[in-house]
């Protein structure tokens, strides 16, 4: 297996793909958003319970490749307890990781996604759930699609 491919399919990613965390709808969710990647058919729903400005609970559901499923799962573990501003900052960092391969500022599992940058076609797989989560935070009713933003 090439170095690029083993960088892409890191153990953290395989683990989240196999045993997704926070999968399924939260009954108490007060925000949700749907994300679509029309070119490959990946779908992701994100459910949140916002308590004030804090993400008290978060979950996802959907279907897609290992990268998209692992990204959604890992995202839920990273966003729980964060404020909207913190979530946006974290997404900015995650976006930089997947597009440039840069390691995260603090030690974090998000770094497992650095290998994505060598596979430009897969960046959208990694960012789909994050777009849905940000839309849910902003209360956007319209479903997000990977065609409506740059990545």
């Amino acid at each position, binding site marked *: 297996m090439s170095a690029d491919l083993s960088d892409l*399919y890191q153990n953290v990613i395989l683990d989240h793909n196999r045993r997704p965390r926070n999968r399924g709808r939260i009954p108490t969710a007060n925000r949700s958003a749907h994300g679509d990647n029309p070119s*490959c*058919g990946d779908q992701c729903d994100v459910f949140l319970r916002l308590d004030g400005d804090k993400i008290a609970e978060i979950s996802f559901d959907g279907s*897609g490749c290992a990268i998209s499923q692992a990204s959604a799962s890992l995202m839920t573990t990273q966003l729980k307890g964060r404020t909207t501003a913190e979530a946006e900052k974290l997404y900015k960092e995650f976006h930089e990781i997947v597009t440039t391969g840069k390691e995260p500022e603090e030690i974090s599992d998000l770094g497992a996604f650095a290998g994505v940058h060598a596979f430009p076609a897969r960046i959208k*797989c990694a960012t789909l759930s994050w777009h849905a989560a940000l839309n849910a935070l902003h209360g956007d009713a319209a479903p997000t699609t990977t065609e409506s933003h740059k990545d």
Partner: protein
Amino acid sequence: MASSWESIRDQFPILNQQVNGHPLVYLDNAATTQKPISVINALDRFYARDNSNVHRGLHALSMRATDDYEGARSRVKTFINAEAPEEIIFTRGTTESINLVAASWGSANLKKGDVILLTEMEHHSNLVPWQLIAQRTGATVRYVPVTGDEGLLDLSALDRLLTPEVKVFAFTHVSNTLGTINPVADLCARARKVGAVTVVDAAQSIGHMPLDVRDLGCDFLAFSGHKMASVTGIGVLYGRRALLDAMPPYQGGGGMISSVDFEGSRWKPSPERFEAGTPNFGDAVALGAACDFIDGLGREAIREHDGSLASQARDRLEELPGIRIIGPKGERGGLVSFAFSGVHAHDVVTFADEDGIALRGGHHCNQPLMKKLGLTSTVRASFYVYNEAREIDALVASMRRTIKFFGV
């Protein structure tokens, strides 16, 4: 250069390369086929020697280019056994051909209460144009069901669905996802009994098997050049002349009018009526060369070759754990579509690419069918004249490595 099966791979320069350190195994032919040197040379020769705008030209190059363009039309006419070159309209591809029929024939012939009959296995290109014209005219769309994983049309439902309200029945010859070969002649005959016009999507059959529009008995037939060893950007709509001459123009512009006044215009007959603007004559020449290439190999022989590889691949893949293969068990077109439980198609395709194997993963522009089958995506391996049995070995070995990695 006449084509032959001998040293067939040498006729496709693109095959002679390494991808990710492995010899290229190109199994994405249902998306687009590679081009033989004879087609590349025909294109090259046209632009190096004859290029000029066609029709109305009074100089030597324009006359030559016109002869080349109209020669390509005649070549396609012979290739599908149409009655006249006027029945061959050049388009950008299958999608534009179907949009042309739906928009032009549909707007003149469909009204509220009419029914457009499609099948559940249609590519989006033979589905969305009909949904659009249904919205505009008030007609409704019905679908012939697919029998599940075996992927056959449920012909027992056809009598119930093919009622006198059906004005058009549009269906694919070979499914791009299932590999199913539909009984086109039978479907056309049954449609004719209720007075419905038939539209055949031949994108996946034209380059792979004998095809004769008079044997099929269809009213319209659409295909693309790039899926039959020719280039992108050129395709064909075949239509029976009586139908074409009664249809309004699709687009307006130069080349399609017989006279223009400020008050209004009159149209030329087919094919000019449907070819507004400067046509794609360069690529039409390449399409003619592709017809020669294919007939040089023989379409019966191509059907045998591609179908046999697809069946072999199916049998070999079936041995893999966790695999679900969709499509018919018997005769199939040159492709096989499958999914693994626990590994997504895109991950499979990424791993195959590492082994130099080009596959396609996704919904294959067949989203409604995928939903019906409870799938979000499949992996598709599709074959053409240059593929060999050893490439199936490479495919199966790559699949084994992938599912092992993901712990299936």
